[in-house]
């Protein structure tokens, strides 16, 4: 039972990431390779303020989301000048930047959480407390699963509301023809900033849940491989609607579990998983550009 709850929590976490990327990629056409960085911002923020300052879950998550939103400017400003292919590379630059931030803000002799050693570098931060909302402690796996599910559903509802609002219509118009939208007086650069801010904030939320559940965070959550996993998830699942990201998230969970049954040696399990994803990407590009269940074909 616990095994399924464990998978369920991960499914919720990745669904939130998938929905956030759906906004950025499926509605704005911004394929970003930096998302793991923002996931990690949420995780690290929650870790630091709950361990060092004793904050509860909600304020910690709020702070994480705020920081991620502001940091999303790095990606959205890249989108001003470049779209499509070059933007992907710029997001890669942001990714390298964020990763090196988490990896290098470290001093061996200082205690973590101080300005000299904010992230504890490669050692990571351990002993992160489980979520605590106004005194209600979410200790058991069942309660955390519930929390994760509620948050995932909340994100889904908010995304749905946004997409069906005039703002969502503006996104679709921008996606169809950005130059014409600008000619109608729409400040598309500002809108892209909003989209990235929301997407990065949601990624940070997912990161906080992850940190609260696993109780340990280190820079491996912010690597390029993680970003690539996220991107694969939504490209294979599909973007532009609501089914696609969910399919992608489920696939992301299911694949390693399936591999477990195929008795692949542990040392290369992660590599095989990523390799399969690479294969899926090539297959999608050739045969089904909208992904398994998506609506928007990559431009």
């Amino acid at each position: 039972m616990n095994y399924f709850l464990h998978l369920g929590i991960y499914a919720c976490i990745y669904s939130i990431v998938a929905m956030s990327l759906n906004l950025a990629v499926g509605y704005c056409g911004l394929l970003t390779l930096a998302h793991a960085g923002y996931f990690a911002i949420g995780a690290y923020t929650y870790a630091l303020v709950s361990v060092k300052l004793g904050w509860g879950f909600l304020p910690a998550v709020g702070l994480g989301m705020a920081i991620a939103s502001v940091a999303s400017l790095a990606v959205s400003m890249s989108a001003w000048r470049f779209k499509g292919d070059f933007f992907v590379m710029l997001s890669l630059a942001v990714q390298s930047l964020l990763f090196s931030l988490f990896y290098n803000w470290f001093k061996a002799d200082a205690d973590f959480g101080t300005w000299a050693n904010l992230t504890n570098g490669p050692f990571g931060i351990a002993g992160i407390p489980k979520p605590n909302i106004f005194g209600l402690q979410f200790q058991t796996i069942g309660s955390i699963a519930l929390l994760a599910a509620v948050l995932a559903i909340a994100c889904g509802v908010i995304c749905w509301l946004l997409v069906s609002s005039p703002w969502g219509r503006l996104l679709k118009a921008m996606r169809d023809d950005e130059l014409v939208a600008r000619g109608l007086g729409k400040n598309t650069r500002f809108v892209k900033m909003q989209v990235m801010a929301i997407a990065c904030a949601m990624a940070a939320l997912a990161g906080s849940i992850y940190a609260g559940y696993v109780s340990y965070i280190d820079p491996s959550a912010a690597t390029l491989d993680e970003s690539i996993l996220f991107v694969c998830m939504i490209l294979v699942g599909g973007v532009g609607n609501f089914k696609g990201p969910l399919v992608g998230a489920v696939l992301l969970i299911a694949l390693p579990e399936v591999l477990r049954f195929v008795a692949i040696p542990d040392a290369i399990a992660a590599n095989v998983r990523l390799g399969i994803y690479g294969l899926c990407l090539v297959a999608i590009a050739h045969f089904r550009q909208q992904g398994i269940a998506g609506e928007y074909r990559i431009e």
Partner: protein
Amino acid sequence: MLQILANGIITGGIIAVMALAFTVVYLPTRIFYIALGGVYAIVPFLAWTGLQWGWAWYVAVAFALVIGVMLSLGCELLNHAWLEEKNASSGTHLVSSLGIYIIVVQAIAIIWGNETKVLRQGVDGVFNLAGVTLTQAQVGGAAIALLTIGSFYLWLQSTKLGLEFRALADNKNELALRGFSIQKLRLVAFGIAGLLSSIAALLVSWDVGFDPQGGLAALLLAVVASIIGGSQSFFGAVLGGILLGILRSQVVWFLSAQWSEAASFAILALFLVLRPQGLLGQKLRLESES
């Protein structure tokens, strides 16, 4: 001061070779060849294996270069050419290229493992020129980079195939209307890109070693270099590479090696604001005109 400059020019030269490799595919075909990072990653491993099997260094190098070029040609023949047939969008090409990159890198990790390796043991000999200290690897690297870039330019400007290639970058349709096979020229592009990136990979791995993850980082530097120098010309990529090398070595000196990523990004941001078309680039026509 001169030392930093010299270091910068030499690293810049190698970045320039990679930037040229990227541009050689991008300019004529508008394909964002991410899988080039995969070629970059696998070549040193091949050379290493050759050395492990007791081959002489030039045999191992030749082996690695040939496989690198073949891999690059394979990308075009088995992937991009197909997509082109179906009139795929550039985003689709990019996603497929990313997929191939991932497959190649994971294959490397499975076959050779994830740790960093080196191609040679021991300490390098050093030279002293006009007060500047250069290692043997640096001097060799600079010479080969120069030779490579120089040969490319000679080929581009004075041979028939080079002319066809320049024409391809200018106007693919008009070239096709003159009876020249675009298919063949694209293969030439991918082949040259494979060769150039293999050379760059070997130069870097000879100097500092290599690991499966290095490809995309090198490609990123190459793309930044081509943006800075002007992504509309071959020469722009080279100029951008050298400039990037110099600027990065300044940063590494004054801050530390850890901040070189941030430095690349900051330089790029500066250029995007001040001169988005790059140093040698020209004002772009509105992309909407069709």
